[in-house]
């Protein structure tokens, strides 16, 4: 139990910070997608009727980017909260160690029993913090899973964009194909960041 507690303290606030950093990167990429979607919409409009299918997809791409940004920002805040929670718990575990050492050192000292309340309270704080931490991590994992699902839809959309781009007249086909590739690359990049984030807490639960 002690070893598990120590791992909790030392590993998880770092893991949460890594998730926060990964999602920060994901947000930047999502902002790029949003811009790309804007360009795609303008191009598709210029391309006329032949790009109607592509135009419809740009709305989905834009929505996906916005959702990624919103979710990533939310998850990012959650990750920061988790990191803080884990750091607080580490301090509590540290205090428990000190109290236990003091009780051991105090031995038969006249008032050694007066140390017990502080130890018990610290242990209660630790249990409470562990519960809060687990609940926060569960929320974070759920959000990451949701985002990963949306991104799988994004990959389908980018594949469809490529197909639609080939249906457009020669003047715009190349540009729209470039946009479709950009969306595919960005979606893949976000997926990587999310996957790394998921791995950080994969061993919990």
């Amino acid at each position, binding site marked *: 139990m002690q070893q598990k507690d120590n791992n909790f303290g030392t590993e998880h606030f770092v893991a949460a910070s890594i998730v926060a950093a990964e999602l920060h990167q994901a947000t930047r990429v999502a902002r790029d997608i949003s811009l790309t979607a804007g360009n795609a919409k303008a191009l598709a409009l210029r391309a006329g009727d032949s790009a109607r299918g592509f135009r419809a997809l740009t709305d989905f791409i834009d929505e996906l980017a916005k959702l990624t940004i919103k979710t990533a920002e939310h998850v990012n805040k959650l990750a920061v909260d988790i990191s803080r929670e884990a750091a607080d718990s580490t301090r509590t575990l540290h*205090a428990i160690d000190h109290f236990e050492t003091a009780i051991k050192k105090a031995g038969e000292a006249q008032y050694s029993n007066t140390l017990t309340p502080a130890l018990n309270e610290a242990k209660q704080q630790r249990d409470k913090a562990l519960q809060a931490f687990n609940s926060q991590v569960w929320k974070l994992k759920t959000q990451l899973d949701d985002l990963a699902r949306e991104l799988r839809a994004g990959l389908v959309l980018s594949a469809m964009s490529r197909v639609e781009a080939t249906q457009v007249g020669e003047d715009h086909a190349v540009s729209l194909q470039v946009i479709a590739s950009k969306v595919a690359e960005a979606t893949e990049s976000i997926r990587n960041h999310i996957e790394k984030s998921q791995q950080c807490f994969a061993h919990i639960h």
Partner: protein
Amino acid sequence: MLSKEIYRDGRHQWFVFGRDPDKPDGIIDTNQYMIKSGDKALLMDPGGIELFAAMLAAIVKHVPVDQITHIFASHQDPDIISSLGLWDRTLKGATLHASGLWEGFIRHFGMDTISYDAIPDEGSKVTIGNTSIEFIPAHYLHSSANFHVYDAEAKILMSGDVGAALEGPGAAMEVEDFDAHTAHMRYFHQRWMPSNKAKNEWIESVSKLDIELMCPQHGRMFRGDDVKRFLDWFNKLDVGIANN
């Protein structure tokens, strides 16, 4: 850790704690002091995080931990008060007395339950149980806002870093040969204290006090005539040598 009663009368007691044999290598040896009066106790310069468990174990030989109602920090350094976050989890309703100038800094050690009594630059008084003590200004010796504790009844001055000495492990708690002891004090005072003016003002103020025992935060305590010897020696010492 050594813990010893150094004064007792019908109303209160003084204790010193120090020379912890389990102290990790590389951290400076420190003395901690405690006044117990009635069902209240004041812990002075309780020390660093690494010393906390040993201090707690030593204290409960003398008082129940819930009777530590007051803590004093002479200044903001980690060897003085970095254990604050742990004391904060141990004591309920205690008060920390320290310079108002350092409040925003000291709180970084972690403080949720202990309340902060900001000592004004000119000093103040506080009652611990049945005893009244005084926080005496010792600014720039060596911190820019710094206080010592004077107990007129016991004739004891807790003098923070003034009178400090750096010695190897296991040194005695009291000065035995003052002249020999100056070798352990010289560099500490010259380098960690920046101002001759501040030093002279402190000597002038402290010379007016009736002191039987002077208790620094590092090194050995000075008793009787050695207090006067220390003030004379300090008076002649040029401090702030980094800029000389």
